[in-house]
């Protein structure tokens, strides 16, 4: 008699813990081997909990040195690389390798952002004036339908590199890659709450996320123009930073707008100090 497999229970990843939806609801998804599985159908309350976790984690995440954040992102890349086979089963090998390389790319941005976005301002008065980028805070991401893994990582990585924490709504038709990514990130050194991943119905979750007053920015790569307009309207309530983008197609498109992504999730602080005893 052949051995019976122990099947995976897919869970949401919130605050560093793997949890079921507080609503208890589920949806269906199909694995690469054709098997149907149950996945959590996140609710507005899960979104609320995720934003709270992301907020709590944001201060400590931003307080780490840029070097440390870079090391953590690189380790996430290591963790994903060593699980290529597992992730390839729910996306494709090339996509996984591109996702790894995207994480590596942004791991290398953490301690360079300041040199590129900031600087010293040669003001016409005896002051040392300098500008430094700081993270905007908690970023909401609405991931594209596909490529499910790369499209998600292409938005997570720059947000994290800039010192933000993230709540992401996973691809609705292809959620398994994102849910497996949660497991990968869970074994990397990413602190709990820095990334929160929710599977469920985009039409329910994205507006809930976009309406949350404690979100600083929303990144929408859904490609759904009506949703985009709604998110923009919701963003206006608290002057959130909103960005809409097209889904990436591969590594090159994923990093082509790196600086724009990083800049869009940073706030520039300018300080002045007199020079003169």
């Amino acid at each position, binding site marked *: 008699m052949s051995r019976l497999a122990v099947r995976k229970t897919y869970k949401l990843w919130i605050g560093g813990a793997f949890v079921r939806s507080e609503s208890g609801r589920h949806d269906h998804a199909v694995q690469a081997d054709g098997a149907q599985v149950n996945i959590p159908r996140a609710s507005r309350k899960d979104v609320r909990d995720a934003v709270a976790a992301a907020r709590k984690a944001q201060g400590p995440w931003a307080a780490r040195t*840029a*070097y440390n954040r*870079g*090391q953590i992102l*690189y380790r996430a890349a290591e963790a994903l690389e060593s699980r290529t086979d597992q992730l390839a089963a729910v996306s494709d090998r090339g996509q996984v390798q591109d996702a790894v*390389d995207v994480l*590596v*790319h942004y*791991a*290398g*941005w*953490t*301690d*360079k952002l*300041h*040199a*590129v976005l900031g600087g010293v301002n040669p003001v016409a008065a005896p002051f*040392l004036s300098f500008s430094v980028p700081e993270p905007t805070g908690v970023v909401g991401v609405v991931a594209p339908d596909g490529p499910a893994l790369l499209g998600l990582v292409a938005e997570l990585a720059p947000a994290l590199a800039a010192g933000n924490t993230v709540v992401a709504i996973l691809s609705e038709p292809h959620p398994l890659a994102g849910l497996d990514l949660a497991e990968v990130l869970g074994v990397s050194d990413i602190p709990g709450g820095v990334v929160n991943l929710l599977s469920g119905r985009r039409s329910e979750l994205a507006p809930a996320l976009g309406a949350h007053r404690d979100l600083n920015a929303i990144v929408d790569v859904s490609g759904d123009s009506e949703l985009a307009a709604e998110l923009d309207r919701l963003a206006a309530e608290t002057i959130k930073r909103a960005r809409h983008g097209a889904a990436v197609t591969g*590594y090159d498109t994923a*990093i082509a707008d*790196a*600086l724009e992504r990083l800049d869009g999730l940073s706030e520039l602080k300018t300080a002045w*100090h*007199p*020079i*003169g*005893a």
Partner: protein
Amino acid sequence: MTTEPRTSIVWDYAPAPEATDHVRLRDRYGLFIDGASRDPAESRYEQTLNPATEQPIAEVAWAGPADVTRAIDSARAAQPKWAALPDRERAKYLFRIARLIQERARELAVVETMDGGKPLRESRDVDIPLAAAHFFHYAGWADKLRYGVNAREVAPLGVVGQIVPWNFPLLMAAWKLAPALACGNTAILKPAETTPLTALLLAEICQEAELPAGVVSILPGDGETGATLVRAPGIDKVAFTGSTAVGRDIQAALAGRPTSLTLELGGKSANIVFEDAALDQAVEGIVNGIFFNQGHVCCAGSRLLIQESIIETLIAKLWRRMGRLRVGDPLDKNTDVGAINSAEQLQRIETLVAAGEDEGAQRRTIACELPEHGYWFAPTLFTEVSPAHRIAVEEIFGPVVSVLSFRTQAEAIEKANNSRYGLAAGIWTDKGAKAFEVASALRAGVVWQNTYNHFDPTAAFGGYKESGFGREGGPAGLRPYLKIAR
């Protein structure tokens, strides 16, 4: 010369020797050329000694002219392919090297201490972590060069020859190799005569990282090896860290040639303490500035400029603090000041210190038991120093600090700038506006305010005047390794 006896110890730290049994060194190391260990053409091998014990650690090949040529040829052959790699692939090689340094960190720290004499606490907590961080930082620039130098097109220079000193052997190797490779160059590194080992372990790490053959060569040897390397026709760029005297020779040797050059040379940096400084922290900064790494630091705060109104108080605090420095076995984890790197260097220090006494300065050296074997110099403070004294002008490169007084800010700046050197400076004051104003006026490439001897891969480092030209660290560290097309 006055010394003060130590009080009798009630509670002392027991010996805390770092374990060395996990370190695997070979008896003999070849040259690293074309991805593998090679015998030198003329079969020259020299022993490298532990300066704390004068005992040999290993035999190391020294490269002769034929070896230099061989290395350049392999570097030249490897360069186009290296530069043509997709940027992200080149980056990943450097990330691998960074991670391998971290994995082998303890071993590297022990070997660095054995080969060079610096305290284990420093090689473990400063040298090795910073070396890994430099590779990590520049790995991340490899695919972002056009952001780093604000250009649409950049290209590597080609084959670079790099010579590093004995005071931070692995760290200096990292400072040189990381940016060079990130920019698509291939490199030939000549480690210092007395400290080749960690560079050779780095060669092993390059192999473990599967770095393509020829991208990095390591050629131990003496001054002649270095002289041959920099003058060789196949070198597109030279990067040198070492004494101003040798830097001058190199610059002269390259006169009229298109070889690009950067130099990081000596210093006689002024550490300036104002009366409104946080005094106890200033004392720590002074100690760190001149006794860190036995004072074998190009940017050492070797001229201590103290505002007259606090000079007696500060010297008293400093002297008492110096009395707590633990000098001895570098492998002991509690050692603060290790061995002098070589007999030659010890001789140079002793000569200059004797000159200081002859010229009339007042010498104080802490009382401490020095081991019977090895090269040692106890931390020393000179007061009654005139700006013209040799000990105030010439770089001693040892644990010797010379005190000069000043009355006003303007005088401090003038004295600080009155040197052929211009590498670093320290400013101690609680007033931010003053700190920035003095910093603006100092002709020094690195200005530390209320701290000293802090280094980071993101922060550019380099000198003014005869302390050299070119910068290492941050995006500024990329420019010397690139041709900016447009």
